[in-house]
């Protein structure tokens, strides 16, 4: 699904990623853990194609295509989804309108027919329910005045609706209390499938108690320094990142 080779990337002229190698197979969940400033968020932005994140070396192959040659919305339409650590407010645009615009833009880019209002509405209702997303929330402007939990649920709702092949969750647990965390984790787990790969980026093990990964990587100073099974997360929780931070 995804093959990252020797990836180097700069932000504002400073090298943040210094040779990342990572292979993610369809149907697997990979966790990327690491101390603050290790390059976790940078990796997610580079994969999504954000401006200002300049790749200087290496390659990223996604479903056999050169991901780095695609622009942001092409990557999205090809099934790359990034759940934001801090979802962005879009004043005046209701969640419903945003969801419909996004879904139809992707369908159009893939040459599929756009969903009309009734079909779309039915789909949103179906996807909203398990995530406790109310009609009221769908009518409010996206992320404007949303609580931390609402923002993250809105992110997962978008993911459920857009059905990406590769979902990258950037610090999805930040700002969530335990109940909200459970709802979000259940939402994510229900999207696990043999066709879909996930990269879960987190600082803490807590999230991984609920979204159990197949593989855990430790990112430090722009490189993956250790890879292991799900038990690696528990080990890190006990020992901390001290050995990697130095």
């Amino acid at each position, binding site marked *: 699904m995804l093959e990252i080779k020797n990836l180097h990337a700069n932000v504002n002229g400073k090298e943040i990623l210094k040779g990342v190698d990572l292979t993610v197979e369809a149907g697997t969940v990979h966790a990327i853990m690491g101390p603050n400033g290790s390059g976790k968020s940078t990796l997610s932005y580079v994969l999504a194609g954000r*401006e200002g994140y300049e790749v200087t070396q290496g390659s990223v192959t996604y479903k056999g295509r050169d991901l780095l040659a695609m*622009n*942001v*919305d092409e990557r999205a339409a090809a099934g790359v*989804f990034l759940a934001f650590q801090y979802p962005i407010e879009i*004043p005046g645009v209701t969640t419903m309108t*945003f969801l419909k*615009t*996004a879904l139809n*833009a992707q369908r159009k880019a893939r040459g599929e027919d756009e969903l009309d209002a009734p079909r779309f509405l039915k789909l949103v209702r179906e996807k909203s329910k398990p995530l406790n997303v109310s009609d009221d929330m769908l009518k409010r402007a996206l992320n404007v005045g949303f609580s931390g939990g609402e923002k993250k649920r809105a992110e997962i709702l978008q993911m459920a609706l857009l059905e990406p092949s590769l979902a990258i969750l950037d610090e999805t647990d930040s700002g969530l209390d335990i109940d909200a965390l459970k709802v979000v984790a259940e939402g994510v787990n229900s999207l696990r499938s043999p066709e879909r790969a996930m990269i879960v980026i987190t600082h803490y093990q807590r999230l991984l108690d609920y979204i159990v990964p197949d593989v855990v990587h430790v990112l430090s100073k722009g490189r993956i320094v250790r890879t292991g099974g799900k038990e690696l997360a528990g080990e890190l929780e006990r020992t901390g990142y001290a050995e990697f931070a130095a």
Partner: protein
Amino acid sequence: MAAVRETVESVDQVAGEKYKYGFTTDIESERAPIGLSEDTIRFISAKKEEPDWMLQWRLDAYRRWLTMEEPKWAKVSYPPIDFQDAYYYAAPKQKAKLESLDEVDPKLLETYKKLGIPLVEQQILAGVAVDAVFDSVSVATTFKTKLAEVGVIFCPFSEAVREHPELVKKYLGSVVPSSDNFYATLNSAVFSDGSFVYIPPGVRCPMELSTYFRINEKQTGQFERTLIIADKGAYVSYLEGCTAPQRDENQLHAAVVELIALDDAEIKYSTVQNWFPGDENGKGGIYNFVTKRGDCRGARSKISWTQVETGSAVTWKYPSCILRGDDSRGEFYSIAISNNYQQVDSGTKMIHLGRNTSSRIISKGIAAGFSSNAYRGLVSVHKKAENVRNFTQCDSLLIGSKCSAHTVPYIESKNPTAILEHEATTSKISEEQLFYCRQRGVPEEEAVALIVNGFCRDVLQQLPMEFAVEAQKLVGISLEGSVG
């Protein structure tokens, strides 16, 4: 019967191809000599078979206009206009009819397609000859019958002068006097045609009145004159313009709109203006110098202006309300979008004369490219106006770094009981908003349109439903090429 005649005229227009050849030479000779003089005005008045009082009114305006100077205070600049180098009467102005849509500028067709305009309407808008049978004619007919049943008068201005002189005499110039300002005075002297609406007491106009259906009016846009009167307890919603750009060879437009609301009456006036803005280098485009004013003459009356301005090279426009009647209310909702080298200086005036009068101003200015976008507004409270309320919100959104937005609010209060609120913001579309939208698969231009539509939501909601949907698409189209 006026209605029948108008329908016949409509059909003639629509089926113009058939009649065109017989008329062509006549039309040419019906053009007034170039330039502006008393003779030109006499010529126009005679062509329209106007009564003497109308001619005298025009001449008075003309003589006054000669003594006036062009206003220079707006934040717009354009080369001097030579008023003697223009034709002031060329009606009925038949545009050269085209044989089929194949002859129409593909750019125009592309825009129609994006707006989702039906093929037949595309043909009319682009000036293509259409067979006599088409939907709008029957729409126009049923529409006329329905209006006549409730006593609503909705007709071309020139027809009103002939058939309802008592109403025209009573109200014409009573809101915008012929001496009001340079362009209004020019309009008073040479106005071509426009719409006249009268809603009798207690009548709620059963449908939205729209210039869109009045195909026979399409060629009279240059110096349009509109007069709308809502008698006691009446209600009317009037839609001006349409979202589709039309072919138009006149560069200078100076319209005047007067609204009069008597006791308990309400007028809702919505405009979508999408005239040629000039090309991406700022060449060409319409100069739009409009005077629009409503008079809440009666107690508890209400006038509401909603405008979506996306076209014209230069826009100079301040739809205003005179709140004369006690407890009357004025509203102004505006979206002004400027791109490339467009210049907009627009806003409103709320003149509070009566007691307990209230007004609300929501203005959304969006500037892109190299454009300049100014909000200029006045809220004025007179000495005797007790308990006045005003709320003003002016928001500007900048796209790119070469454009500019300006807010010039004037507030004058001569009564200590007034409560006036003013809020203003200026923001930019942020990189992170664009990235977020694009990460969800929305291409950049569509993302800009989405964000701008969100920014304009408070105003778009004021538009009648169908208009709002088209206006939303128009917002996106006007901003094409503004990013990247």
